[in-house]
């Protein structure tokens, strides 16, 4: 009789189940001309400077583009991040925003 323990295990999947697999992206715009673009900033990594440079270049390419600046929006990564982000869609809609640039990092 063999008394050696049987080294066999049926191991279960250790991850929790994903709740979201795929969502639809928003339809893209035909052009930025005449559109309003919001600047969303988490106050990291020189985003203020990046927005200034990008805004200048986008205005040159699309003279009719309008911007809602990051100062008006507020920090997207502050103490009130969850509440801020939850309220963001309604705020942007009220501001007539058509597109958004969100910075920085991830």
């Amino acid at each position, binding site marked *: 009789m063999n008394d050696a323990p049987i080294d066999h295990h049926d191991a279960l999947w250790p*991850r929790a189940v994903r709740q979201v697999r795929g969502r639809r992206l928003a339809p893209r715009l035909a052009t930025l001309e005449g559109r309003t673009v919001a600047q969303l900033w988490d106050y990291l990594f020189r985003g203020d400077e990046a927005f200034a440079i990008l805004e200048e270049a986008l205005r040159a390419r699309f003279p009719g583009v309008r911007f809602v600046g990051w100062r008006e929006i507020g920090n997207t990564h502050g103490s009130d991040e969850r509440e801020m982000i939850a309220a963001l869609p309604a705020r942007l809609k009220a501001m007539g925003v058509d597109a958004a640039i*969100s910075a920085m990092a991830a």
Partner: protein
Amino acid sequence: MLRASAVCEAVGIPTSSLVTEGFVRQAKATAVGLGLPHVGLAMIPGHPAVQDEATFRRHLLETTLPQVVANLTAALADGEADAEPGARDVVCSGGFEEINRVFVEREWSDGLPVVPPTRARVEAFLREVHRDPDEVLGTLLPDNRAATVWSVAVNGVMAGCRPETMPVLVALVEAMADPAYGVEHSGNTPGGETLIVLNGPIVKDLGFNFTQGVMRDGFQPNTTVGRFWRLALRNLAGFLPHKTDKATFGNTWRVVVAENEDALATIGWPPHCVDLGFAAGEDVVGIARYTGGGMASSMAGSTPEALLPYLADGLVRHTFWQITFSVGLGYGKLRPLVLMTPIIAETIARAGWSKDDVKRFLFEHARMPAWQFERLLRDWTRKPIWNLAEEARAGRIPAELYAASDDPQRLVPIVWAPEHIHLVVTGDPLRTSGYVFGQNGQLGFPVGRRIRRPAHRTPPAAAAAVKED
């Protein structure tokens, strides 16, 4: 910042997310968890923090700008995450070594050997909580995974926990899911690591170390429950190094720190769990993310006034960039932690000082010159928009604390109120030391959860404490 982009996309506002080169992998992995694997990203080469203005500008105009325009105006493919196994699926069969090889390969393990999570082992854990195995304790970012009692048990087995610690593990994941804690930030740049503080009769009942070497591995419940925490971040929330976890250096997981409630009882100080909103005598887990810490070693003095300056000094030394959680990225959200040994607490209490008195002293003495605070806040974080006087004028910070004068040498506090400094009595009872932790503000804010033990494990004292509230 992809969470902001995701809510915009959901209401029909197209987005482009600016991502520095080092964050592209994280952004792609995070986007999958948000259900938007093809969300528009516009990369900035290198890192802006070390680029001169000309280089930064050139990168933005040559690389980033075309991607921004394309993200907003060109069609992007919808997509979805790859299919995965079911919650109760057996994903690997074989010997111990084979199981561990596969678990490492599929990023389900922290690299140490795991106990193979078999159904029999998982069911032993489930018997220690009278809860539905499918009960969802919370949905956790970045992967948007629903952490269940079952999935907690699986990871508890893997970590080498004993089954009777299962109620602690469940309470930990409930705390992890608390929005105030902010689990979604667990992969951020500073790489702060969570410290679990345990209170209540369960400390002794399950044999947690609460004396000498309390932060050292080698005590099974402290060590394995600490390890469970990081496995849960990996498998239940989805934090994977080189992907969703972007800690610059990182820390390894910390073992559980249990408070010495015997020492507290002798001096009449309330336990840490009271600071988190629970009653003394309850079984409670507290969590918060700390960025690092250090010893105030071998303090000397027979009065509070002689002993506490060591800790006030330590609080300032371990709070530098973290000051941005008091003013800046957060407002009044910094919660540094002080550990002190029982003999230090007893010496202070002998002078008639309460725990609140200690916090008041630390609040009044853990201060730095305003110029230094502003240098940390503004100059060293490249934020042109912040200084104390302007923040006070805007009503965002208490003027009496931060803008009482315009003297740059005036001393300003690192936190807004005495109760923002947390205090735990633990460690070697007869050594005269303290330990100070810098904290990660709202990106790992202190929260607690009551531990619900099954009737056959609940001692009379703990049962009474729960019944009273």
